[in-house]
C-alpha cells in the first residue's frame, strides 16, 4: 500500500484548543493516527501529557470517545472494553461494525507501571491497538526518568545523566508473537500511516511505538520536533521495523543503514542540540562518551538486523 500525505483524510481528531506545548510530538502523532483509524474508534488514555492537554471538562480536544483510565490500567482496560464490545455485538445489543479500540499511552504507562497489564493483554491476544508515544521520560510530571530514558540523558531524577540502558519494549512485544508490532517516527508519516492502517485491519493485539522527541523534556528548539525525529532515525538511535507473529522486518531507512547502503549519521549530530546531553558535550571525556553512544547504536542495529535474519 502506498499512501501520500495528500490522500490523508481532512477530518481532524485533535481539535484546536489542545493544551499541549506547541510542537508536541504526541499531538502530531495522534493527528496522523486519527486520520488512519477514522471515526469508528474508541480511545483509552492513561495519565500523561496527552491527558493533561485534553482541556478541562466539559471540553475535550479529542473528538473520539475517550476513556481516561488509571495509570497501570491500559492493557486490562482496553482488553476488557474490547471483549465487552464483542459480547454486546454478538448479542445484538450493539449494531454495525465494532469500533477500533486503541490505547494512547506514554512510555511511563507502557514501559513501567503499565507493563504487566500490557504484556498480559499481548499474551491473551486481546483485540486492540496499543500505541506508545515514547518521549523517553515522564514529561507530564516534569520530566523524570522512565525505563525508556536512554543512557546518559539528564532528567529531573537523573541529574547526572542516566547510568543504565533503556529497555527494548517493542522487542519484548515481538517476542510475545502478537499479530503485529511496529515502531514509527514522526519524520516518516507515510510509514506511520501505513502501519496504523495495517494494525487496524488485523484482529488481535497490535503494538505500535512512536518515537516522540519532546522539546521541553529534551531541551531543544520547539520547531525541531520532526527534525529531531529524523536525526534519531538517521543516526540509528531510533530504529524503524515491524513484525508479525515474531517475524521481524526492518523498514527503510533503518534497513538501508543496517545493510550499509546508507551511511549512519554520527550520534553527535542527533544529541548535540539536546540539552539533556549538554553535560556530555561539555565534558573533558566527551570523546569517550560519544564513542560509547556510537557503540550502543551499532549494537542495537546489529542486534535487530540479526534478529530479522532469524525467522
Amino acid at each position, binding site marked *: 500500500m502506498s499512501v501520500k500525505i495528500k490522500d490523508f483524510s481532512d477530518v481532524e481528531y485533535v481539535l484546536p484548543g489542545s493544551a499541549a506545548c506547541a510542537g508536541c510530538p504526541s499531538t502530531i502523532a495522534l493527528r496522523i493516527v486519527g486520520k488512519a483509524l477514522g471515526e469508528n474508534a*474508541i480511545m483509552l488514555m492513561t495519565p500523561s501529557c496527552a491527558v493533561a492537554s485534553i482541556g478541562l471538562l466539559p471540553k*475535550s480536544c479529542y473528538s473520539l470517545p475517550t476513556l481516561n483510565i488509571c495509570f*497501570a*490500567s491500559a492493557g486490562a482496560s482496553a482488553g476488557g472494553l474490547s471483549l*465487552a464490545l464483542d459480547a454486546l455485538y454478538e448479542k445484538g445489543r450493539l449494531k454495525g461494525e465494532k*469500533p477500533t479500540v486503541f490505547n494512547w499511552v506514554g512510555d511511563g504507562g507502557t514501559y513501567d507501571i503499565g507493563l504487566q497489564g500490557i504484556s498480559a493483554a499481548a499474551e491473551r491476544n486481546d483485540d486492540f491497538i496499543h500505541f506508545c508515544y515514547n518521549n523517553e521520560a515522564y514529561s507530564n510530571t516534569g520530566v523524570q526518568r522512565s525505563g525508556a530514558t536512554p543512557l546518559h540523558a539528564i532528567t529531573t531524577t537523573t541529574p547526572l545523566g542516566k547510568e543504565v540502558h533503556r529497555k527494548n519494549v517493542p522487542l519484548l512485544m515481538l517476542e510475545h508473537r502478537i499479530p503485529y508490532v511496529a515502531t514509527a517516527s514522526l519524520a516518516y508519516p507515510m510509514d506511520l500511516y501505513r502501519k496504523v492502517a495495517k494494525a487496524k485491519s488485523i484482529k488481535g493485539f497490535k503494538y505500535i511505538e512512536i518515537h516522540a522527541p519532546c522539546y521541553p523534556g529534551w531541551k531543544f528548539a520547539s520547531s525541531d520536533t520532526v527534525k529531531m525525529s529524523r536525526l534519531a532515525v538517521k543516526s540509528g538511535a531510533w530504529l524503524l521495523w515491524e513484525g508479525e507473529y515474531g517475524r521481524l522486518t526492518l523498514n527503510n531507512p533503518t534497513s538501508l543503514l543496517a545493510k550499509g547502503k546508507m551511511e549512519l549519521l554520527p550520534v553527535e549530530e542527533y544529541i548535540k542540540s539536546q540539552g539533556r546531553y549538554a553535560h556530555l558535550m561539555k565534558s573533558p571525556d566527551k570523546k569517550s562518551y560519544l564513542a560509547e553512544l556510537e557503540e550502543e547504536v551499532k549494537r542495537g542495529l546489529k542486534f535487530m538486523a540479526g534478529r530479522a535474519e532469524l525467522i
Partner: protein
Amino acid sequence: MKKILDTGNAACALAVKAAKVDMVAAYPITPQTSVAEKLAAYIGSGELQAKYLPVESEHSVMSAVAAAAAVGARVFTATSSQGLLYMHEILHYAAGGRLSIVMANVNRAVCAPWCLYVDHQDGVSQRDTGWIQLYAASNQEIYDSIFLAYKVAEAINIPVMVNYDGFLLSHSMMPFEIVDQEIIDEFLPVFQPDWRLHPDWGGTFGNVTPSDEYAPFRNRLADDMIKAGELIKNYAREYKELTGHWHGDLFDVYRPEGGEYFLLSMGSMAAEMELAVDILRKEGIPATGLRLRVFRPFPGAELSRLLPPDAKLLVFDRNHAFGTGGGVLLSEAKSVLFDRKDQVKITGQVMGLGGEDLPGDYLAQKAREMMEVLK
C-alpha cells in the same frame, strides 16, 4: 423453583449465570477461586453467553470490568482479601465513574501475617471508595443478593460489593432455593444504560476536571449513596413479592420484642448471634440481634429507629479500626447515634479475626462482658 444443596461460592456463580452477565474478569485467590472457575466453566460450555477475560492481577480485573461497564456491558467479578486491596485505586475509579459493576468479595483476613480465614478487614478497608456494600449471612442470601446488587447498581449507577464470609459460607454446603429464570428476567431485565462510551453516543469519560466541576460530581455520588438505602429496601421487597425470599432490608432484626440490649454484627457471625440472643433471653436478659445487611450506605437513621430510648448497643466487630480502640462498626454506630438526646449507651469488642471460631455461647459471654462495661 427448586432447592439444592451447595456451597456459597456455587450459589454466587449460579446467581451470576442467572443474571445473564455479558462479561466476567477474575483472578484466583482463596477462598474466592471456585467462583471464577465455575463462571469460566459456564461460559466455556455455553450455559452462560458471556465473555471471560483471564487477567493477570486484580488491579487489571477492576480496570477491565470498569472499562467494560463504560460501554454498557453487565459485568461481574469476585475477589478476596489481598485481591480486593490490590484493586483499591480502581475501586475509587469505578464508583467515581458511576459504573454499575457487581463484585463478590469473599471476606478473608489481610496480611501481614498471612491468613486464609475470614474476617471483615478487607471489606471495611474499602469503606470510603464509594461502593455500596452488602453482607450476607447464608448461601441463600448470597444467591439473592447478587440480583439485588445488579438491580441497585444499574438503577443508581453505583457499583455494589456483595460480601460473604470465606470458608464459613463460601465452602459450606447449605440448602438454598434457585429462582426460576423467568422470574429473574422479570426482576432484572437486560441492562440498557442511557449512555455508552461508543462512537454512536460520543463524549468522553473521566476527563481532567476543574474544582468547581469536580466537587459536584463527588457530591452527587455522596447524595446518591444515601438514596441507595431506600432503593435497596424497595427492591428487596419487590424481590420478596416475586420469590418469597426475604432476609430483612437494611437490618435483619432477631427477637425485637422488648429489646434493651442490641447485639450488632454482620456476616455469618450474626447468624450465630441468634443463638447468643436465645441464650441471653433464657437468662431473662432482653437481648435483640441486629444483623447489618448494608454496610454502605450505613443505615444510621434505621439503626436509630430500631433503638428504643436508653437502649444499650453492643457492637461485635470482625475487624479493627486501628487507632480508635475498637472496630469499624463501633465507630460508625457511635457517630450516627451521637445526635440522640437520650442515653443510648454503646460499647464494642473486636473478635473473630483470621477465622477465630465464634460459637453462640462464646458470643453470649462476650455480650455479658460488654453489659458489665455499660453498667
